[in-house]
């Protein structure tokens, strides 16, 4: 479904990604982890072309992200993305946040889009919040709306860029619960996160990054059971013992 092939990226002279290769199969959940500054967020933003890269290519459902002729907006509309800081549109209420792209990009009618929005809000437990503005919601609620907004496009895969990092601890679970449910329904997911509990529960594979390289790419059991690299061992011991 998502094939990342030998991606390298530079910011000027500084190399942020070095020869990264991995993939996410259909209905697979891949968790990407690693210390901050290791390039995980940059890598996931390359998948839908939000960040340009200089070498390599990424294929989503067989379509090249780097090729000149690719219709990027169309490609992006098929991949849902959830951000660390939610990025709901603050000048629109919850319903409009969810219907905007359905109407503008998919050409759905106002009515159809609203129905879809309300069904998804119900699913993430936020039916009551439909007329409110993002500023009136808690972080956890905003992130659930953001997930609903992405799902409204009927995506073939979902990208999560540290979806719980900006949340207060008591709100993390309400967001993770929605993500676990999605994973169990068979959604194809690539998730950048430090939530190792989530990884243990639903991930199929874990990708460990350090200094812009993919250091380890293993089945979940292998990664947690017997990590091969020294860096991954260190990282796990730091993140699991607090």
């Amino acid at each position: 479904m998502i094939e990342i092939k030998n991606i390298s990226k530079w910011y000027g002279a500084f190399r942020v990604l070095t020869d990264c290769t991995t993939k996410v199969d259909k209905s697979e959940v891949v968790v990407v982890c690693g210390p901050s500054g290791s390039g995980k967020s940059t890598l996931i933003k390359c998948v839908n072309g939000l960040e340009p890269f200089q070498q390599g290519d990424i294929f989503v459902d067989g379509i090249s992200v780097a090729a000149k002729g690719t219709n990027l907006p169309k490609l992006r509309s098929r991949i849902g993305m959830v951000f660390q800081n939610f990025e709901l549109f603050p000048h629109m209420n919850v319903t409009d946040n969810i219907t905007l792209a359905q109407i503008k990009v998919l050409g759905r009618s106002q009515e159809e889009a609203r129905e879809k929005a309300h069904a998804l809000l119900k699913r993430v437990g936020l039916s009551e919040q439909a007329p409110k503005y993002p500023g009136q919601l808690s972080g956890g609620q905003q992130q659930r709306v953001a997930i609903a907004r992405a799902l409204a496009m009927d995506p073939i895969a979902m990208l999560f860029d540290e979806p719980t990092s900006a949340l207060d601890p008591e709100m993390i679970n309400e967001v993770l619960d929605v993500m676990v449910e999605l994973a169990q329904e068979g959604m194809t997911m690539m998730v950048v996160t430090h939530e190792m509990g989530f990884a243990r529960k639903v991930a199929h594979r874990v990708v460990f990054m350090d200094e812009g390289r993919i250091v380890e790419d293993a089945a979940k059991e292998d990664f947690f059971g017997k990590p091969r690299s020294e860096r991954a061992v260190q990282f796990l011991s730091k993140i699991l013992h607090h």
Partner: protein
Amino acid sequence: MFTGFDFDVIARSLPYMGQGMLFSLGLTFLSMLGGIFLGTVLALMRLARFKVLNVPAGGYVNLLRSTPLILVIFWFYFLVPLALKKISGDPYAQGIGPFYSALIAFTMFEAAYYCEIIRAGIQSVPRGQVHAAYALGLTYGQAMMKVILPQAFRNMVPILLTQGIILFQDTSLVYVVGLTDFMGAASKVAQRDGRLVELYLFAALIYFLFCFSASYFVKWLQARYHVGR
């Protein structure tokens, strides 16, 4: 007190000065609208990656911002008819008249200032918002119109209005092309009746009242906006 002053002259010439005020307000309003529209286009050009767009826009803004407004008004009033004659080859071609020259001059001049305000406004919208809009499949145009510009303009309303207040004061310069705005009207009455002190005092008072209440409104808007945020 005030013996020898005749404040009655103000009451007598009020309708005439009222007309002048309507002209000032109309010109301010129209050039603000035009200036904001053209300024937005210029701002988008300046922010564009392509040199063919951002270099001319940058040149335009820098040129107009380093030129006195009065000179821009002169250019349009005197040069446009000359240019029209040259282009059409008709030695009797008429210009576009003082009102339209002034309107175009003000619009183009203000656009340069609005461009910089709007450019800063667009840059004040967090990058994550742009990413979120693109990630949903919106095109550049859709993301601008629906997500970025609405937020940018909301942040900019106070400073756009403040620029409007400056523009309102600047409209008094139209006397150089023979138009009669509020200031021009007051000045003409003052000269005609020899009542300079009374009328210039009155004009100052009126400008103060208009501009002060407008700035007060801007402050109120700002306070209200910050609470709602």
